[in-house]
């Protein structure tokens, strides 16, 4: 499982304060703690804390890489912010650009831009592409799959290795009127996305969005994560500091035969060496 750790995000109060006060320690501590907890990548999102998003992205990247070599997942809907981060990043161990829709009303070529930036970032540059287009986030299964198919096709046409492509079928909060059908729709879409090419593209989700506003946040997140693993999910943006969630993930992967069982499987999973 390619685990992307979500905590370095300006939407969180302590990160927001750290950004505005240029407090490196908070960021570096989060980078280290999330790495120790099993993160394969660290998501970096400037949030809304600073007016200068590009400068803030660079400051975050540099701050993290001063103490930590875990690859980063640059998280912004603005190509310019991603490009700014790429200018200062060491992408030797990989980088994920997070994320682009298939297209936008204001920018039909947005996905091309992300793919190009990932190509130029080195042999391990990847992107997350959302099953979303200029009409917004689809609510049904078929449109999700159709958009994913267009994304995969575009990657193939441009010679972009589909192993560097993460499809995000977009998790919506379950606590929204009439939204309870969405988790099921997403799983059904994932079953089909897994068949778009061979080997299939990676599939990732921003898990925490699912439980937005709900009371049993952690429980909802981890149950859905376990189900999604059985539908081919091989990456997720999660709170790696949630120990129970990580245990569920290790168990789900073990039950799906993604890692060998041993009596200490939970422990080796958390240490990031379990496979």
């Amino acid at each position, binding site marked *: 499982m390619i685990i992307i750790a979500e905590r370095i995000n300006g939407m969180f109060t302590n990160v927001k304060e750290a950004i505005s006060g240029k407090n490196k320690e908070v960021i570096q501590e989060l980078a280290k703690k999330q790495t120790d907890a099993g993160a394969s990548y660290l998501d970096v999102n400037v949030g809304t804390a600073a007016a200068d998003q590009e400068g803030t992205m660079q400051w975050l990247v540099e701050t993290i890489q001063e103490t930590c070599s875990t690859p980063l997942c640059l998280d912004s809907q603005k190509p310019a912010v991603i490009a700014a981060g790429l200018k200062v990043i060491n992408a030797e161990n990989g980088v994920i650009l997070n994320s682009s829709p298939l297209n936008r009303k204001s920018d039909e070529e947005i996905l091309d831009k992300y793919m190009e930036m990932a190509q130029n970032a080195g042999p391990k540059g990847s992107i997350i592409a959302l099953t979303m287009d200029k009409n917004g986030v689809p609510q049904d299964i078929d449109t999700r799959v159709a958009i994913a198919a267009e994304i995969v096709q575009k990657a193939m046409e441009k010679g972009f290795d589909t192993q560097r492509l993460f499809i995000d079928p977009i998790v919506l909060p379950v606590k929204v009127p009439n939204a309870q059908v969405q988790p099921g729709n997403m799983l059904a879409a994932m079953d089909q996305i897994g068949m778009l090419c061979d080997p299939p593209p990676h599939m990732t989700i921003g898990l925490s969005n699912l439980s937005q506003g709900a009371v049993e946040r952690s429980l909802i997140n981890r149950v859905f994560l376990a189900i999604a693993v059985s539908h081919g999910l091989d990456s997720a943006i999660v709170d790696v500091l949630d120990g129970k969630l990580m245990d569920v993930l290790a168990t789900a992967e073990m039950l799906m035969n993604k*890692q*060998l069982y*041993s*009596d*200490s499987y939970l*422990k*080796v999973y958390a240490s990031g*060496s*379990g*496979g």
Partner: protein
Amino acid sequence: MTVPEVAESFTGSVNKVTLGATKEEGGTRSRTVTVGGACNVVYGGSVEQAGEKPVIAMDVLDIKPTDWPDVLAEPYKDVLDSPGEWAKKCVEEFGADLVCLKFDGIHPDKEDKDAAYAVAVTQEVLKAIGVPVVLWGCGNDDKDNQVMPKVSESAKGENCLIGTVAEDNYKALTAIALADGHKLITAAPLDINIAKQVNILVSDMGFPLERIITFQSTGALGYGIEYAYSIQERQRLAALGGDKMMAMPVICDVGYESWRAKEAKLADAPGWGDVGDRGPMWEATTAICLLQAGVDIIRMRHPRAVAVVKKFIEQLWNREA
């Protein structure tokens, strides 16, 4: 029709492990041997991805074997009671890459030899040959825990491969092997989940994963080889998938297991062919089958079987071909 490209890319690889220490490295070996390093399935992918060539460790026992069939004892008849000479013969005449000194004699049910005896034999063998040495206990936990730490200490600095440790008996030997700078063999009874667990336990004691060779147990041709085969195969796939707890090179015990088979040793069996050929063939076939499942070090006994397997390895790993 064009042949589709089926190149697989794996995230992990088998660790490379070097055995033996030369004078410059603090030992007395004339050469070292490196195994492992494969980053693809066996015989899959490019030549470079195959890693290091598999090697043969020829068995030398610490006492004169009493139960070896004539065909097996014959090539060693002059040296069976002299482990040093025996080891020398394996290296100089039969081309052993490594020598595996097997301490049968310390077993309480055999000659119950003490640690002083085992240490003396270890020294004798180390002095007689220049190749790296494998030091293998008798299989009785209590006796191994008494004797093997002393053996380890006496070979300190030689970077030997010592074992075996198991899920329910690993602490004593792991600690001493760590202190004496040896590589360690973790053993499991044809059970890959236990194999992984032993590696985790040993690594919890601070023993580096990069210094471990795994022994999954071996079944000879006709006697469970398929279990050994599928476990080796699964271990390789786990290593390639990035499971660091399963990324060790592998040792198997073909000599002992093959010569337990009645087909290998029964003299009075008309219709089974010449007993002089049968045993070496049984051993060679077992070894070659396991090579195809991905093993790195093969313990062997009969020189004719060794010759066949060496030739097989040379042909397949010939980089110029």
